[in-house]
């Protein structure tokens, strides 16, 4: 109806320009236009957190952000958090702690947990469970996820200068 809009963003520390329709969500564009398939679609209505990305330092459900609203924003997806020397401590802890089974919820959990630990490296179990309430997992029963986040937090604190 209204043609496509040019949007300029920074995604995973790279300048990214894309064209989108007004009705397209950021999630649709990440997956279908930019082929960043790490961001998952779950419920598509803000309940499950599978599409969580970090936008300007805050976690958001990318299904509830219009792609046009991403103009000028800085976005981190799961593809952007591994470091040159290897996986992010959260990714490593999830792997080692069996904190995933089917894996659909995992990118959202990792990004939500990263945003928490970046702000509150000492977050305790209660805080972690509260912070992750917007991410659903139907496989693990959550416990291994919470243990993995606690472990990663400890490692990140020890590594910090």
């Amino acid at each position, binding site marked *: *109806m*209204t043609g496509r809009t040019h949007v300029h963003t920074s995604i995973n520390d790279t300048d990214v320009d894309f064209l989108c329709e*007004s009705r397209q969500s950021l999630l649709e564009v990440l997956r279908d236009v930019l082929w960043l398939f790490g961001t998952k679609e779950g419920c598509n*209505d*803000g309940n499950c957190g599978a599409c969580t990305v970090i936008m300007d330092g*805050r976690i958001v*459900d990318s299904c509830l952000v219009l792609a046009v609203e991403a103009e000028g924003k800085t976005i981190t997806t799961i593809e952007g958090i591994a470091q040159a020397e290897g996986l992010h401590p959260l990714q490593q802890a999830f792997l080692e702690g069996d904190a995933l089974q089917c894996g659909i919820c995992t990118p959202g959990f990792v990004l*939500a947990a990263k945003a928490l630990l970046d702000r509150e490296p000492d977050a305790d179990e209660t805080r972690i469970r509260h912070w992750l309430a917007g991410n659903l997992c139907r496989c693990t029963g959550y416990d291994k996820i919470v243990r993995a986040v606690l472990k990663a937090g400890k490692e990140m604190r020890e590594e910090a200068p």
Partner: protein
Amino acid sequence: MQDFEYVAPTTLEEAVRLLDGNGLKVKALAGGTDILVQLRANRFQVDRLVDIKGIPELNQLSCSEADGLTLGAAVPCYRVYEDERIARLYPALVDATSLIGSIQVQSRGTVGGNLCNAAPSGDSIPALIILGATCEIAGPKGRRTVQVERFCTGPGRNVLEPGEMLVSLKLPLPKANSGAHFLRFTPRKEMDIAVVGVGASVLLDDARQRILSARIALGAVAPTPLLAREAGDLLAGREASEAAIEEAAKAARAAARPITDIRGTARQRTHLVGVLTKRALGTAIARAKEGKKP
């Protein structure tokens, strides 16, 4: 989702012009955490979405002991509950905003949007009502103000005329010896929709024994969030005692007009209004006693 025109004005005048669609179906977009879900579910159609987040006045959050709180309609929940001045002066607003959706939703969703969405269960609305908030509205015919308790007119409906928009919410500075609290009942602690929500605010005398005035507001028990005026008024002049609180809870139950739906029965909701009113008043009174003595 159907396609629509997306516009992002940077001034209030431009936004009002764009919202007045001349027959087009137009809606304002703030955090989008309700409206995008509703559009995707085909709850309604729009020809144009007006993104109001680029308008400076709508991002305003000023809180001072001189003027009280001005909360722009596009300010997301996290900016409210992370603000130390708001936490000190308006803890009931922190109670409510930190209950809305997930951390993800709180990054985007706004108090103004929660109000305009006019869900009977909207968590921030009873909190705004007990704190005496007023809505600053701009439209083609100029500006007007409406008391929050008069803003919602039915489920999903509010007083805004075509072309009108909520600009900000103004909350008076709480008086000395006052306190307020909002709480809700949900099967799950987070990420849920209130079966019942109750807010209460009280103003005590200088000795902090007697209630001078009180306001009680109920959520999810009527077509709109409700100011239970009689329940609050009967506390005026009373000792802050269990007997008085019990009486107010009874009056609040009488004011509720709940329905039975997927989240609860009318009977359960009426019961919850009583329980939550007592708890809300108890915490409001405790908070009033915590503050600095004048």
